[in-house]
């Protein structure tokens, strides 16, 4: 039983990391209708910035997180403005290939800046865990990750449903032209979405590397793909969906690793995704929009 709970907590905390990344994916997809393949690499940049701030500049952990959030936000807005904005009217494939180009760019720039050898990321989260949790080997990082994920989701839900900017975002995702006619600055709203998504990616990057401390230019690629899977799993475009998808994906992965096969864990995750999409084509919490002729 103790072992089972341990696996469950591992799955929950990895799932929370996926959920935070998936929230960024889902927001960008919801508004810009594009698969932002460079999202995973923003995670990597966030982790590197935090790593450099603590190891080379000697800044305290919390300040390094703030710094990496700022850098990633600026990066997200820059990438959107320079690479994606000129293609607003172009087809989805052109934007997809551009996103892939940005992803290559970030990975190779990181390799030039920081080298290809993996860096050993020291966890930023260190505090004693309450004894009733410690008996299940719950680490401080897991605890912080799960709490951060829930907090972020609640804030985002409030933000999109109540705040003015959030309402503008929802309007843009429904119908850009109509939103513009209502006086919403569509370009600024999309920039804002990218800013939020990238800030979340920075936090996810720090948490991811506190959890599994190997940091290299390709660190973000696989978590990025899995988080994207999680977003689709939960219903892309839906914020609670991204949360549910991410957490479920993490738990399924941890259980598959523990009880079935380590080398086939990813396959099992993807197989579950395929089954879910066949039964519920819009994902778990996605809105099914029937086609009108």
């Amino acid at each position, binding site marked *: 039983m103790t072992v089972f709970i341990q696996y469950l907590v591992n799955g929950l905390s990895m799932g929370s990391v996926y959920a935070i990344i998936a929230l960024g994916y889902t927001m960008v997809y919801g508004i810009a209708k594009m698969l932002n393949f460079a999202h995973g690499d923003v995670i990597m940049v966030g982790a590197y910035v935090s790593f450099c701030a603590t190891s080379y500049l000697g800044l305290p952990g919390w300040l390094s997180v703030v710094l990496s959030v700022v850098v990633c936000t600026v990066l997200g807005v820059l990438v959107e403005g320079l690479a994606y904005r000129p293609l607003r*009217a172009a087809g989805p494939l052109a934007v997809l290939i551009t996103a*892939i180009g940005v992803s*290559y760019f970030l990975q*190779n720039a990181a390799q030039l800046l920081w080298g290809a050898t993996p860096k050993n990321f020291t966890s930023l989260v260190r505090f004693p865990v309450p004894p009733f949790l410690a008996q299940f080997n719950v680490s401080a990082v897991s605890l912080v990750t799960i709490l951060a994920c829930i907090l972020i989701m609640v804030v985002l839900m409030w933000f999109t449903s109540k705040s003015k900017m959030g309402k503008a975002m929802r309007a843009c995702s429904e119908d850009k032209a109509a939103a513009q006619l209502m006086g919403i600055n569509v370009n600024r709203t999309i920039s804002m979405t990218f800013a939020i998504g990238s800030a979340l990616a920075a936090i996810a990057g720090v948490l991811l590397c506190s959890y599994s401390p190997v940091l290299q230019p390709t660190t973000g690629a696989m978590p990025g*793909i899995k988080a994207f*899977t999680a977003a689709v799993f939960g219903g892309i475009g839906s914020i609670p969906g991204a949360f549910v998808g991410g957490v479920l994906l993490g738990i399924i992965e941890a259980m598959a690793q523990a009880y079935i096969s380590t080398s086939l864990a990813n396959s099992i995750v993807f197989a579950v*995704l395929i089954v879910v*999409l066949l039964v519920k*084509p819009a994902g778990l919490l996605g809105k099914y929009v029937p086609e009108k002729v």
Partner: protein
Amino acid sequence: MNFLKNKQTRSDFITYGLVIVAFLVVFFMQANHMIPRMFAGQLVPITAYIVMAISLNLVVGVAGDLSLGHAGFMSIGAYTGIVTAVSMQAAGAPQTLALVVSIVVGAVFAAIAGFIIGIPVLRLRGDYLAIVTLAFGEIIKEVVTCLIVGVDAHGLHVVFNLRGNATVNDLHLMDNGIAIIKGAQGASGVSTYSTFVAGFVLIMIALVVVLNLVRSRTGRAIEAVRDNRIAAESVGISVTKYRMIAFVVSAALAGAAGALFGGNFSQLSATKFDFNTSILILVFVVLGGLGNMRGSVIAAAVLTILPEALREFSDYRMLVYAIVLILVMICTNSPQIQGFIARFKPKKKGEAEANV
């Protein structure tokens, strides 16, 4: 030359001619040792990538389904091809026969996989279809990583390494047996059997198959489904059937390309056919132009040579490649830049009026 009056036929023959001329030039250079050493090893991979691009273009460009897992079919073709070739070589078959049979076997197995995967995948559309093909690509990669295959006088021995603790010894091969695929290591110690000429022949076959398919009644049905699924359905076109035809033909070609590709390396691990390879081929297709086979051929060739040619930039070459990729996409797709370029072009009379 009456048949060349047809615009499409003429365009197709230009494509064939281009490939033949390029082949003759390269073949001549190869015979005279004029090819720099760094490109010589790239010849077979380039032909395999060209076939992959043609094959993917059939799904993405002609059928309009975005597939992000095409490397999976290449992987199936490569491994079944390698197993076939090594078994045949062990039985004493001549090199060329082993090559041809392995390509056919690779194509058949990939086509079967394409059909099985197509059943669930083609129920979906758009981004959901893309993510499911990505998922299948990753699944194929991991399943292949778990395979241990060997051959001896009793035939093939296969072990599925589920818990990660099986080794080549679990195959219980006889003394003269050969271990072909060794789990995560992939296929190693295999004598290479692919040739550049075989690659050229495969490109021509792929072009003839795909171009004739596209120009046929079936091809027009596939394009109709792409352009407007509901309208196509309402005039009695079976949507699933035609998407499936495109998907399976494409998978078979990808399998053949994989077998060719696999035969070029003595060491080949399954991670060679990951998501990045699928994306690489998608980049060829999109830059070459959706549905444009000639574009795919040129883009695949140029973009495989480009990173090699950029070697003088050494560390910066992939960075330059990324920037070139982004700039090309922006320049060819941004309406502002298109408008800017159009200003310098002399306008035809009819066109100018149409723009008003």
